[in-house]
């Protein structure tokens, strides 16, 4: 199965890169991800509980990041299996800045899927993968937006704090 595409996320490249390298946050964005933990440098292990219609299953596997060039590129190697099938393959992820506020995410990969799942699922595996990718990017966009909103709120707080300090200092000086 070949997967390739491009999507634009509304956040600067550094923030997208940081998100895509943060297993704790990624775990919340990946559809059905129950666990994602660091096994070593650039190596992660995890469990997915995914499926469509009545075909649901638990898959566990490893993900390795190679050829890492921050904040623009890495290669992913995946190897996972469950009761109903296995998948292994690799793909690349490229981040390109689109102006100051958005980033194009380009991905291309080739994944082999096998096992009983393919016997009945061959027709729909591609679309199921695309659907989950779509869900992932929608969640990533929401996460980046929430992060930006959080930053603005914190900046606002600091600014208010600073202003009150200035006022306090000024009033102290007026008194003297």
């Amino acid at each position, binding site marked *: 199965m070949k997967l390739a595409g491009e999507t634009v996320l509304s956040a600067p490249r550094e923030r997208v890169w940081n998100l895509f390298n943060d297993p704790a946050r990624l775990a919340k964005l990946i559809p059905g991800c129950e666990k994602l933990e660091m096994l070593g440098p650039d190596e992660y292990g995890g469990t997915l509980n995914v499926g469509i219609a*009545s075909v649901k299953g638990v898959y566990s596997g490893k993900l390795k990041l190679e050829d890492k060039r921050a904040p623009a590129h890495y290669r992913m190697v995946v190897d996972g299996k469950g009761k109903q099938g296995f998948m292994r393959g690799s793909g690349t992820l490229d981040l390109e800045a689109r102006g100051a506020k958005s980033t194009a995410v380009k991905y291309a990969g080739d994944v082999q899927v096998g096992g009983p799942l393919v016997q009945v699922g061959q*027709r729909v595996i591609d679309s199921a993968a*695309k*659907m989950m990718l779509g869900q992932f990017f929608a969640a990533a966009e929401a996460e980046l937006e929430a992060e930006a909103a959080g930053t603005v709120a914190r900046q606002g707080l600091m600014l208010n704090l600073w202003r009150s300090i200035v006022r306090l200092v000024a009033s102290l000086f007026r008194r003297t």
Partner: protein
Amino acid sequence: MYPSAFDYHRAASVKDALRMLSEYGEDGKLLAGGHSLIPIMKLRLAQPAHLIDLSGVRELAEIRDESGKIVVGAMATHRAVESSALVRAKLGLLAQCAAMIGDIQVRNRGTIGGSIAHADPAADYPAAVLALEGEITIEGAAGRRVVKAADFFLDLMTTAVRPGEIVTQLAFAPIPPGRGFAYLKHRQPASGFATVGVAAVIAIAKNATCESARVGITGLGPKPFRAKAVESALAGNPPAQATAAAAARAADGIDALADIHASAEFRAELARVYTRRALEAAMARAAV
């Protein structure tokens, strides 16, 4: 191949089925005709611990005229729809579509509710249900709600039905006299599924232009859809002249499926060809 062990429950009513669904939660699965569920259970891709059979719920299999609307119960088999005098008289397109599903064994067991709730991207019914602007009734613990066909199919095998809910019936306005309709499909020879299927309903105005067109397409993308680009290219134009150009837009904006039977390019081409043929067949039956 044998499915893994499960408990079989026969629901006596919708209420009964809803109670069992909430009791068994993720381990419970509704059984309608079983033509999609049983094969995947035999491959052990699905291993529900509890099967809740709806075939004993009589009222779910009824087809009736309810103050002008045609109501088709979710458990009505394809054969029941295809042979219903009421459906044939008032909803010819649905009868035509039902008659083209699978083979006689499939039509004797498979149900309309099962088909749309499963939402296989190659299922026949969704194209007709979309073109007929059907309304789907869904019942759950919180009560019943009615969802328009256009809002029912959300994505690949994903519908507006939430966990714990049951599709109970479909309701349709009868096709007004004079409208032309047709369902045409490229049939996958082994399974009988639609590689691509197109349902069209056309109204011709007195000045011989196309008053309205409704086109539902299945098999092309991850979910069935209304081909709005085709519909708007036809509306207000003389149908004979506008058909080819309208049908050429059948696959516009759709991320076509690809598998060993048909590439994405071939599916898109099939959609254009079968849309043209379905429009022509519908026009041939339409009266001013």
